[in-house]
Each structure stands twice: as structure tokens, then as C-alpha cells.
């Protein structure tokens, strides 16, 4: 009962300022302010933790150039230029391979029996193991990051695509049988729409896992790239740099997700439900669950 | 036997979205019922029948007006059968019965068993609602409502989600149970045939939540739809519905 009833609004919430502050956007804004203040407090408490302004300043200098403790600055774009192609090649490969394997697993029950247990082990294998192995195999260079991305992301794409294939309801197949729907129309109108959603979820998986993987591999086995750069500051005990790069990693993944993947996925899911301008918890939740199965190691 | 007294009841729902209009679900309804009666509340969908029952049961509150349910001057006990079974899916049939019981464990069990037997579910005590068919679930709902020995029994279209054959047999069971217990019943339906078959009195609501008509049905039980008197009653009420629709059309221009 207490859940079903809402509290009565106090007078504060009726004033214009109160209404703005208690609106959705007000709540979000407040949360960011609280976050920044919390960070600042933490920085004051723990000496090693840099504050928000210090970090922002570091990021700015990393972009604009200069010199810090003998380390040349301003190669921000160069490092991204090294990392992004590795990330993109690995991602594309795992997407293609994962889709093919996933379709096989989803549609042929023998393949499913053959691969499901092994896939479980691969899903559980942490990315850092692949990073260690590929560094030993290929030494320092571009190969270790690329292969780490492929080896850690592919199983997740495969699992998602397989789920999508399996999710097409047998009732709809039977309905199509009853109406004698031809094979290619069935593929286009039934299978494809059902699988696209899963395909995009798979892609988002791959992006987060792959990003983590490329960072790890560069951390341990590269001589350039953003992961290597973060390690440089870590080894130099410059925590500003370390946290600064952590922020850059997060911002990168958010931008990629918000500007590229999310809009594409929304288009693919148009038929699901009408757009809502409320904070979309369910959407976030589906992603979270997807991400929850990621090997972050 | 309980007395239900509704005086100048009005219910308005607030608008859900900004700029939306509030919904007037019930507008100035008054009526009274008491004793061993089976009263049906008939009306088109959306005319406020469920809202009325919710207010009577205390689940919802009136905007204006008063609703009192008394039993010899005291507050009456209520039983409620909903349109859907509304069973706790994570509890067995017996646990669902015990959930609404105020008796001691042993007594409660015996009592629940008695009513489950009445609806023919003595074998289903340990089953979960998910293991029962829709008709069986609704039977549990009916047994649950009777099991609290209510002074006033509220029923909100209890058979409308069921297939015609199951609905018919449950209607007959309800008739038998009512004859055995003679509860005061307020029964909501949109089905005129069902109303004529079961009730002593039929109150018709119009769109917008006003009382349109209030008649008694004095036919002997059990009633048969093939009986000419039955058919005449049904035709009369349906005829009034036509008048109501015509008036509405005229008002709409």
C-alpha cells in the first residue's frame, strides 16, 4: 500500500524553483553536483586522490601540450590514433565471427551441445589472461591488443546471437507454416527483426568488453596507445594522470554508446514500444544485464 | 446481514499528465441495500462500477459523499472477488486461503478446506496458482471470499475472463453457495443475462457514473434463460439500455 500511494507534495515543491529542482532534470543535475562535491571531499581526505579541477587541468594539458616531470605532453590524438584502429579491427572481427558462430549454435542443436560448455569456459576466461598470453605470443606491439579484443569479445557476441535465434517463438514459426509463408519472406520478416535486437546487444557487449580488453593489453604489452599512456603515469606515481586517463576511458565509452550505438539500437527496436522521454530504466537495465556478463578482467 | 448505504457519492480521478482532464468516474450516486439480497450493478464498460466497489471496500476513497457498511450497527466484514483471480503466485492454494484468514492455524485450515470443497478444489491445496487453469484460479478466489464469512460480499465481473461454459457452471455454483449462505452480495457485471439469472435487484449505471435505473427481479430460483418471464425481464432491461444509448447519442448532438 505504501508503494501504491505517493506522498503528498509539500509546499516547497509547488514553488517554481522547487518544481525545477524536483523535476527529472533537476534531480539529474543535483546528482552531478553531489558527485563532484563527493569527489572533492574524497580528494581532500585521501592525499593520493586528485580533485576534479586538478584532473580536468591534467586532461587539458594532456591535450594541449607542455611538459610534466620530463614527459612530453600533447600527444593525446596520437595515442587515440594508435588505440582506435586496434579496437576497431578487433571489434569488427569478433562481431563477424561471433555472429556466424552464434547462428550455428542457435539453429543446430548438435552444435549447441558441442559448444555450449566450452563457450561457458571462454565466457569465464578473464580478458587479462588473453592479454598475458597474447603478449607472450606476439611481444609488444599492435597484435596483442587486437587479439585480446577478438578472443575476449567473440564468445559474448556468439552467445547473444544464439539467444536471438532461439528467441523466435515456435508459435510464430507454426503460424508461418499455417499460412505457408515462403522461406525468404520468413527470414526477412520474422527471423531478422527478432535477431537484430540481440545483434545490437551483442555489439554493445563487444564494445565494452573490447574496450576493456584493448586497455588491458596496451597496459601490459604495447609501446603506445591510451592504455600504455595510463600505465606510464601510474608507474611514475602521477595519480592525476592515472585518474585523468580513467576519466577519458569512461567518457570515450559513454560517447560511443550515446552517440553511435544507442541511436542505432533505438532504431532497430522501433517496433518494441513508443518512445518515452522519461528516464528509461528498463532500457538501462537491459544493458546492465548484458554488461553484467562481461569479463572485465 | 449487512446494510450498505451510499449517499451522494462522487469520485473524480486527477489527471495523470499535465494539461489532461480529470476523470469523473462516479457522479452523485445514492442507494441503499440490506439483508439477504443479491444486487447486481450493470452498466457499460468504464461507467465506474469497479471504482464504486473499490470505494465500498475501502481500497479507494470517495471524493465527496459517504459510504457506510454496517452489520447490526458495527463495521461489517467484507469479502471481495475480483475480475482476475488475484492470488499470490508464490503461495499455494491453501496458503492463499490462510493469508486472508484471521482464525488460528488449525481452525483456518479446516475452514479453508470447507470452502475449497464447496468449489470442488479439495485436491488442489498444495498446488501453486500457476498450476491451475483460469477457471480453477477463479474458484479459489470465490472460495477465499466466502471463507472470511463476509457480511457483505463484493464481486467485480468475476466470470468475465472465463469461457462461456466455465462461466456458466461457476454461476450455478455461486447460486448454490448463495442459497446456502444468504449473504448480502453486490455483484458487478456488464452481462444482463447474468444479472437477471442471479439477482433480486438490478441497478443500472449510465456512462459518466450516474444511476440510470433500479429494478427488482421477482422470479423464483433456479432461473432458466428459456423461461418466458426470464426472457421478458432481460428484454426489458436491454430495452432500457437502448433508451440510454439513444439519450446519450442525442446529448452528444
Amino acid at each position, binding site marked *: 500500500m505504501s508503494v501504491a500511494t505517493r506522498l503528498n507534495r509539500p509546499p516547497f515543491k509547488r514553488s517554481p524553483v522547487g518544481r525545477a529542482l524536483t523535476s527529472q532534470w533537476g534531480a539529474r543535475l543535483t546528482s552531478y553536483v553531489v558527485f563532484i562535491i563527493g569527489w572533492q571531499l574524497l580528494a581532500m581526505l585521501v592525499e593520493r586522490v586528485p580533485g576534479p579541477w586538478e584532473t580536468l587541468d591534467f586532461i587539458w594539458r594532456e591535450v594541449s601540450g607542455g611538459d610534466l616531470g620530463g614527459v612530453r605532453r600533447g600527444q593525446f590524438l596520437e595515442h587515440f590514433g594508435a588505440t582506435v584502429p586496434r579496437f576497431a579491427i578487433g571489434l569488427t572481427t569478433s562481431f563477424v565471427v561471433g555472429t556466424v558462430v552464434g547462428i550455428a549454435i542457435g539453429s543446430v542443436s548438435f552444435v549447441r551441445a558441442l559448444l555450449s560448455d566450452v563457450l561457458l569456459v571462454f565466457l569465464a576466461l*578473464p580478458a*587479462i589472461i588473453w592479454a598475458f598470453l597474447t603478449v607472450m605470443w606476439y611481444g609488444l606491439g599492435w597484435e596483442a591488443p587486437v587479439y585480446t579484443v577478438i578472443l575476449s569479445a567473440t564468445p559474448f557476441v556468439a552467445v547473444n546471437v544464439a539467444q536471438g535465434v532461439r528467441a523466435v517463438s515456435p508459435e510464430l514459426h507454426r503460424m508461418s507454416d499455417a499460412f505457408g509463408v515462403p522461406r525468404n519472406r520468413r527470414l526477412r520478416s520474422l527471423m531478422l527483426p527478432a535477431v537484430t535486437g540481440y545483434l545490437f546487444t551483442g555489439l554493445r557487449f563487444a564494445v565494452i568488453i573490447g574496450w576493456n580488453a584493448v586497455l588491458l593489453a596496451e597496459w601490459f604489452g604495447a609501446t603506445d596507445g591510451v592504455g600504455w599512456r595510463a600505465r606510464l603515469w601510474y608507474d611514475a606515481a602521477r595519480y592525476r594522470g592515472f585518474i585523468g586517463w580513467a576519466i577519458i576511458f569512461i567518457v570515450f565509452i559513454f560517447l560511443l554508446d550515446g552517440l553511435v550505438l544507442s541511436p542505432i539500437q533505438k532504431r532497430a527496436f522501433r517496433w518494441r514500444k513508443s518512445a518515452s522521454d522519461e528516464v528509461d530504466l528498463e532500457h538501462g537495465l537491459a544493458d546492465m544485464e548484458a554488461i553484467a556478463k562481461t569479463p572485465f578482467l | 446481514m449487512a446494510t450498505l448505504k451510499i449517499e451522494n457519492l462522487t469520485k473524480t480521478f486527477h489527471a495523470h499528465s499535465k494539461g489532461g482532464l480529470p476523470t469523473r468516474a462516479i457522479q452523485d450516486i445514492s442507494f441503499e441495500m440490506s439483508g439477504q439480497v443479491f444486487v447486481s450493478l450493470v452498466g457499460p464498460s468504464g461507467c465506474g462500477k469497479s471504482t464504486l466497489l473499490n470505494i465500498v471496500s475501502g481500497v479507494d476513497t470517495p471524493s465527496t459523499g459517504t459510504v457506510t457498511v454496517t452489520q447490526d450497527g458495527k463495521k461489517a466484514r467484507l469479502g471481495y472477488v475480483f475480475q482476475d483471480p488475484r492470488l499470490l503466485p508464490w503461495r499455494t492454494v491453501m496458503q492463499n486461503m490462510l493469508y486472508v484468514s484471521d482464525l488460528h492455524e488449525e481452525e483456518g485450515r479446516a475452514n479453508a478446506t470447507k470452502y475449497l470443497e464447496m468449489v470442488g478444489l479439495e485436491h488442489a491445496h498444495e498446488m501453486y496458482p500457476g498450476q491451475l487453469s483460469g477457471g480453477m484460479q477463479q474458484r479459489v478466489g470465490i472460495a477465499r471470499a466466502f471463507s472470511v464469512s463476509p457480511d457483505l460480499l463484493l464481486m467485480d465481473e468475476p466470470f468475465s475472463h472465463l469461457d462461456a461454459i466455465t462461466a456458466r457452471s461457476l454461476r450455478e455454483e455461486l447460486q448454490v453457495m448463495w442459497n446456502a449462505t444468504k449473504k448480502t452480495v453486490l455483484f458487478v457485471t456488464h452481462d444482463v443475462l447474468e444479472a437477471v439469472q442471479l439477482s433480486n435487484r438490478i441497478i443500472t449505471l449510465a456512462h459518466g457514473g450516474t444511476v440510470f435505473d433500479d429494478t427488482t427481479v421477482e422470479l423464483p430460483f433456479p432461473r432458466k434463460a428459456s423461461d418466458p418471464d426470464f426472457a421478458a425481464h432481460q428484454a426489458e432491461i436491454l430495452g432500457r439500455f437502448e433508451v440510454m444509448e439513444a439519450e446519450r447519442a442525442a446529448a452528444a448532438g
Partner: protein
Amino acid sequence: MAEAATLEGTSRRLAGARLRRASGVVLGWGAFVGLWAFTSSVILTEFTLPGPLKVWDAIWVIVTAGSWADDFLISISKTFMGFAIAVLIGTPIGYLMGRAGYWKAFFHDGVVGAGSVPGIVYAMMALVIFGIGYLGPVLAVGLISMPFIALNVAEGLEGVDTDLLKMSKAFGRSERQSLRHILIPSILPFAFAGVRLSFAIAWKVEALTEVFGSSNGVGFQIRFAFQGFSIPRVLAWTLMFIALLLLIERALAVLERWLFRWRTWEQEE
């Protein structure tokens, strides 16, 4: 008669399917181990990718050395500590999010954002804040699990069937009875799913943080083996850890199925 015949036919068909599945599983493992052995001896070398036998030897050495249990225990204790913190913080946040639109909007970005941050970032943050020690991995686990628990509790609360609450009120049940018989049973499956999901990632982040900086635990052992260029030992520790976690995972899944057995019946209907 006819019925008995079809029943028998059905059970034979089912048995056939089960046999095919079992043989597929066995074949799958065989192929996996075979491919592994082939890759290590023909494509790569025993040094760069040690074969199954070599890894098995390494596992044997670790097990007979005796102190492996300490490393597992310490890693698992860190995981559960972090987990407990995540539950303690995540549950109230989820409760607020499920109950009020304001809190939902307030926490949404942070919670969803925190769930999509790469694990390496958490490991780094934990190191900066706590340095090398017991608390680093605990913090990392807490940070990464909290969003899942919060979101699942919120979803569970939002999904509570208000019609059941109305039923409860109509029959004059008290708030406490509604809480016990309706609210908690509806949230529990979601909370459990949250725990299971986050457990699957929690241990990975825990081990990762140990790899980055720790003086004990499985992650430390993996790092130690890596620095000694002993790939067999890297793989041995990893596989042992995975085996243990899959076991815990399975146990949780069984427990979940038993706890929420009413759900399967609901779906079958």
C-alpha cells in the same frame, strides 16, 4: 493401448535426444582439449601455449604444494566483503529508485554509468585510493556490483502488482502482512538475479585488482606466474578459479530454481 504406445514412443524419442545431447557435450570437450593440444604442439610451441597435460601438471603442483586454499579463501573473502558492501549500499538506493520518480532520476545516470565502466578503471581507482592491500579489491568489487543490485531491487519494486496490494487491503490485511507476503516475495527473485549477475563479474574485478596490486590472492598468484614467464601456472590458477566459480554459480542457480519454483509453473501454464 494406443496411448501407451505413443507414450513409449515419446520417451524413446526423448531418450534419443538426450543421448545425442550428451554425446555432443562429450565430443565438444574432446574437440576442445584436442584442439588445444594440437595448437600448442603444432601451431604454437609448448612454451608459448602449454598443452593440457602441462597445465594439468601445474595444477597438480599447486594443489600438492598446499597453500593454494589460502589464496582462494582470501580472494573469495575479499569478493564477499565487497559484495556485502554493495548489498548494503545498493539495496537502499534501489529501494529509493523503485519508490520515487525523483530518486530514480537522481541515481539513474550514476548507477547505469557505473555499470558500464571498464573493470580496469575500477581496479585503478581502488589502487589509488587504498594502495596495495586488502581494501583495494573490496572497494573494486563493491563499486562494480552495487549498480546491479540497486537496479534489480528497483525493478522488483516497480513490478510489484498493485492489484495484489489492493486485494490485501480489501481483505483487511495489515501493512506488515503485505510486506511479508507480497512485497518481499515480489522483490526477492529480482534481488537474487542481481546477486547472481553481479557475482559473475565481481570475482573478475576482484582478481584483476589483485593482479594490479596485491600481495596475496589468486590474482596475485597469476601476476606472479606471469612475471616468472610461467604460462602453465598462469593457466593453472585461472582454470582452477574458473572451475570454483562455475561451481558456485551452478549452486546459486539450483538454489534460485528451488526458491522460485512457483515461477516455472506460472510460465508453463
